[in-house]
Structure formats: structure tokens, C-alpha cells
């Protein structure tokens, strides 16, 4: 018996997830800049104000630090806030609250105050938004003990990660890549919560492992397809959760394929790809037939001009080339 499938988009899937949460748990509310009257800067919460009213779909002033901090306080006060920070770029203004309060309160208080808070934000480049609107900083957040970091890359995950995140007694940050909102496809009509503990193999393969997450999953799958055309069987692992990393899944794959390419839209130096590379070396060194390769963003504030931006970001051709390098081949 196959499930009934329905058409949706990443944006709609996120919206339905928020709607479901608001319906299921009256402690849930959504708060952030322009989530209400405007409908969300990327249209995710469109229509929710009309359905749930301004107390639960709460527009905030431009005050990232205060409204993120208020989300923390509201969580401690017994609610289940979903705080939307428009984009990761502006989250720097709230980073102190996220790190020094949300992530630390539980430990600092010896276990007395948990912070059941979900923070959503858009991340990533690729739309010619230039230096201040194109950061990929989810890797930074994945450095902070006390947080869980998730990166929905599929319609199912866009639909399913929120509720699971809300059930987590601790703060969860959801990074939505800006290029995904219009992603369209079908999901099961009864699609619901998904686990946040495991990475997913999005395409099985034997010759090498491509490890990625979020906005670069699509291009990585394209690369795998292209490699297949060249007779190379690439396995694609979608990390899904960046903290804590599900070592078993990607290491299991690498141990089998003996080669790994990591695709990460962060600037290369100090990106999450470095941590993955380090872990692979630490835990699968003797299984490796080639050095781990990384395909990342050039170390430059992302420029506006299309040809420059494209050159700065990881492209399919870069992934394919890296794959061939691990195989000791010229593409």
C-alpha cells in the first residue's frame, strides 16, 4: 500500500510544519521580524497571522538580540517559542544570547533550567545578495556545546524536522538554505515528524563517499549523477544534523568506499568540512585510500556579480573534479 502523495514546496512544507505545531501545542508561538503582516521575509509564514492571530504570530521590531533573548526567556517560562531570525547574517547580532544564554544556561545552572527553544534562519548564498547576505555560518553554530543544529535539505525534512525539534528539551537551530524555498516535489500526504539523530544516504554507491548537507545536496546529487555517467559510483550522505554529528553513517560509508569528498558552502578554512575531515582521519585513517577532499567556498566576502559569485561557490564541476582526484584520475 503506497501512501497518497501530495505536491508541495520546501516553503509550504515548512509552513505546514509550523501550522501543525501551533495546532498541536498551545505553548507554541512564532516570533520574529516580519513573520506576521509581511508573511515572512521568504514567505514561509504567509497566512498564519490570519489563522492564529498576532499573539502567536508575533511581529518583532528590528532587535535581534532582544527577541532571541526573549525567546529564551519565554522557553524558560514554559512556552515553546519558534524564533525566526530572518537570515544567519543577522544572527550575529543575537549570537551572544544564543551562545551565552541558550546554549549555556542548562549547564551553568547545574541542570535547573533547560531551554526548549527552536530558532529558524535562512542561510547560504547563490542569489547575488553580496557579502552581507550570503554567509554560511551553520558550521560556527555547530561548534557550540548545548545546541542541536539541523539543516533540512529535502521536502520531508522541511516538513518533519520542526516538530521533533520542538520536542527536544534543549535549543535547536534550524538552517534553511535560501535556494531551497522554491524546491518543489511530492511528499506523503501524512508526512510527519522525522528523527534528528541520523544522517541519510541519499544515493548509494561504492567508489567514494560524497558528504554534504543543506543547500549543496542538490548539486552533490547532480555530481554523483555525472560521475555515474563516467562509471564512478558515488554514495551521497546528507548529514541532516550538524551537531551532534552522526559519525556512524558517514564513517560507515567511507570505511566501505575508502574515499571521501566533503561539500560545504562555508568558507574553506575553519568550515564544518574541516571537522569532518579531521574525524575521518581520526577514525578511519587506515581505511582511506586517498586524502579526504573538500569542496568549499572561496575565502572571499561573497561578491555580487553573478560570474564572481558562481566562481566563489562550490559547483558541480568542482565536486566532480575532487571526486576524480580521490580516485587518482583525470576527469
Amino acid at each position, binding site marked *: 500500500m503506497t501512501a497518497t502523495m501530495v505536491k508541495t514546496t520546501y516553503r509550504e512544507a515548512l509552513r505546514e510544519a509550523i501550522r501543525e505545531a501551533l495546532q498541536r501545542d498551545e505553548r507554541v508561538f512564532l516570533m520574529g*521580524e*516580519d513573520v*506576521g*503582516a*509581511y*508573511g515572512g*521575509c521568504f514567505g514561509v509564514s504567509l497566512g498564519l497571522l490570519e489563522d492564529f492571530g498576532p499573539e502567536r504570530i508575533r*511581529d*518583532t*521590531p*528590528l*532587535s*535581534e*538580540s*532582544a527577541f532571541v533573548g526573549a525567546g529564551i526567556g519565554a522557553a524558560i517560562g514554559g512556552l515553546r517559542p519558534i524564533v525566526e531570525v530572518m537570515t544567519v*547574517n*543577522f544572527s550575529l*547580532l543575537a549570537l551572544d544570547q544564543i551562545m551565552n544564554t541558550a546554549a549555556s544556561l542548562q549547564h551553568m545552572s547545574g541542570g535547573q533550567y533547560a531551554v526548549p527553544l527552536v530558532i529558524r534562519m535562512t542561510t547560504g548564498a547563490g*542569489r*547575488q*545578495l*553580496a*557579502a*552581507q*547576505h550570503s554567509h554560511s555560518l551553520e558550521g560556527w553554530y555547530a561548534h557550540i556545546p548545548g545546541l542541536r543544529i539541523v539543516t533540512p535539505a529535502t521536502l520531508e525534512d522541511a516538513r518533519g524536522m520542526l516538530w521533533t525539534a520542538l520536542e527536544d528539551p534543549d535549543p535547536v537551530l534550524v538552517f534553511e538554505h535560501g535556494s531551497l524555498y522554491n524546491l518543489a516535489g511530492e511528499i506523503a500526504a501524512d508526512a510527519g515528524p522525522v528523527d534528528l539523530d541520523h544522517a541519510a544516504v541519499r544515493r548509494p554507491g561504492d567508489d567514494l563517499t560524497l558528504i554534504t548537507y543543506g543547500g549543496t545536496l542538490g548539486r552533490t546529487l547532480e555530481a554523483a549523477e555525472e560521475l555515474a555517467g563516467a562509471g564512478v559510483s558515488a554514495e551521497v550522505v546528507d548529514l541532516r544534523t550538524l551537531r551532534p554529528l552522526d559519525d556512524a553513517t558517514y564513517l560507515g560509508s567511507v570505511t566501505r568506499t575508502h574515499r571521501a569528498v566533503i561539500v560545504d558552502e562555508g568558507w574553506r578554512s575553519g568550515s564544518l568540512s574541516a571537522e569532518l575531515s579531521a574525524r575521518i582521519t581520526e577514525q578511519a585513517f587506515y581505511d582511506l585510500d586517498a586524502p579526504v577532499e573538500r569542496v568549499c567556498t*572561496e*575565502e*572571499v*566576502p561573497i*561578491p*555580487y*556579480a*553573478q*560570474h*564572481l559569485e558562481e*566562481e*566563489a561557490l562550490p559547483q558541480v564541476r568542482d565536486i566532480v573534479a575532487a571526486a576524480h582526484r580521490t580516485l587518482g584520475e583525470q576527469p
Partner: protein
Amino acid sequence: MAARRRTPAKADPAAEHERELLRTMLRIRRFEEACAELYSATKIRGFLHLYVGEEAVATGVMSVLEPDDAVVSTYREHGHALARGVPMDALMAEMFGRQTGCSRGRGGSMHLFHADTRFVGGNAIVGGGLPLAVGLGLADHLAGRPRVTACFFGEGAAAEGEFHESLNLAALWHLPVLFVCENNRYAMGTSLAHEHARTDIALRASSYGMAAWAVDGMDVRAVEESARQAVEAIRHGGGPHFLEVRTYRFRAHSMYDPDRYRPKAEVAEEKTHDPVTALAELMTSEGRLTDRQLATLEKEVAAEIAAAVEHAEQAPLEPVEDLTRFVHSDRTPAEVT
């Protein structure tokens, strides 16, 4: 309007000046309209925030600045750049992402820079420009230079912590900064009453101990007069000043914005206070502008824009090999001023 028509006095410097104000506002208006079209034609990409309706603010304020003064702006800064004197070619080329753009194609609409006119950009982090302006003022203060830094931002920015910190610093240190809050009553889709517990922004500013007042931002002559008083006071050691300029944006927040949050009637009503039309009508009615002069002006502006577009279309792209150029300086510290 049934006003008396007089023959425009060609040699009247006040009228001449008024016509220049009109020209500047028209240049901005038509430039923005062209940008909107070019955006639809996918020649311009990224986020595009237009200044239509707010022309009097930039025009009035820039009119009283000296070449040595500095300007700090936002992502809605085409008008500021044009009024400041950044060449239109360089602006349009920047929108097109070309090498001859005022930021060599790296900045785009939100990050226009122009060192020659001390136009220190184009900042797309709301509130992010205020500390920068304070620092420019501090440099002038420490160097004993009688310069002014004009800092533009929206009323939405006034809710950010940096607004508070920056105003306090500027007032505490008595720095030569002119804060210009463009109160267009919306921050994206959030209306003034949802942004601020008390909506009198000038009053808030004056609570830091700086001279602050509100001015009608649809009247370029009023803006200019206020700016002149403020800038003169600042230049003569009067410390920071603050103008809350009441204006309205006639178009959506950005090209992405379907503009659902404002009553259509409100927008329509506000458009009856069009600052460009208002000045033109006033001048015409008082005999300082003929229809022919206006038509000539429009033609000149249209030609300038057409040339800018033409220039941008033809301009070369920065070579991709230069992608990482300017991450660090090409120059030595001695060359940096």
C-alpha cells in the same frame, strides 16, 4: 493649481538652486524607475530597494554638505549616492555587476561605495552604519577637522541596539555627526506602531542630549533648511544633531515584496504628497519653472540614464581570476588614508 505664471528669472540664483534640487530628485526618480524595469529584465539581480517617494530626503541633506564631508548609507542608497554626486555610470554599472561599477561589481545595489565623494557605502545590516559614522566623526574630532559625517538609516533601524549605543557615543563625545532617520513608517512589513513603543523618534534622540527635530520629508526645501541649520551647528562645534525626516516609500520594500501589509488607500493618499511633483508644481505656480524647462530637464535626465545603461551594458566584467582581489589590501599602510 491656479497660480499666477511669471517669466522665470534666469539669473535668479535661488531659482537656479531650486531647479538643481528638482533635477536631483528627478534623476533619482527616473533612475529608480529604470532600475525597476532593468530588474524585471533580469539585468539587475539580488535585492533591490528603491527610493521612490523619498527623494527629497537625500536631495535636501546632500545639498548642504561639503565635498570633504562623509556619507554613510544603507541598502536603499541609490538616491543618496546620486544626490551625493556619485557618477550615474558607475552606479548603473555596479547594478549590472560590471568592472566599472563603483564597487567593481562586488557590491551591487546594496553596497555602493565611492571614495572620491566620501560615500562610505551601502550597508545592508540594518543599524550597522551608525557606529561607522560615529567613528568617522571621531576621526575628524581627533584630527581637528571641521568635517561632518551624515548618516542615513530608517526608523526600523532605530529599534536596534546599535542605534542606542551610537547615539550615546556621539553625544557623549560631542562628535560631528548628522543622524538622518528616514522615517517612512514601515520596516519591511512592520509598521511604526509595531516597531516602537513610542513613535516619536526625534524625541527619543533628544533624550541623549543632542538637538533633534522632525521635518516634513516630502518638502525638499524644508529638509534642506533643517539640514543646513544642523550641519552649520555641527561644523561649528555644536556636536551631533538628529533629523527625523518624515517620508514614505511609494513602492514595495524590495522587488521581492508583494506589499500586502499597507492599505492601498494609504499608499494612494501618500502619493498625493509626491515630493518631486510638489516641488515642480510649486516652482511652476510661482513662476520659477516653465513647462519647457521641465520637459528639458526630463529629457536631460532620460539621456543621462540611457547613457548610463548603455555604459553598463558595454562595460567589461571583472576577470574571475581577480575573485579574491581586495580581500586584503593591494596597498601599503602609508597609502591608506
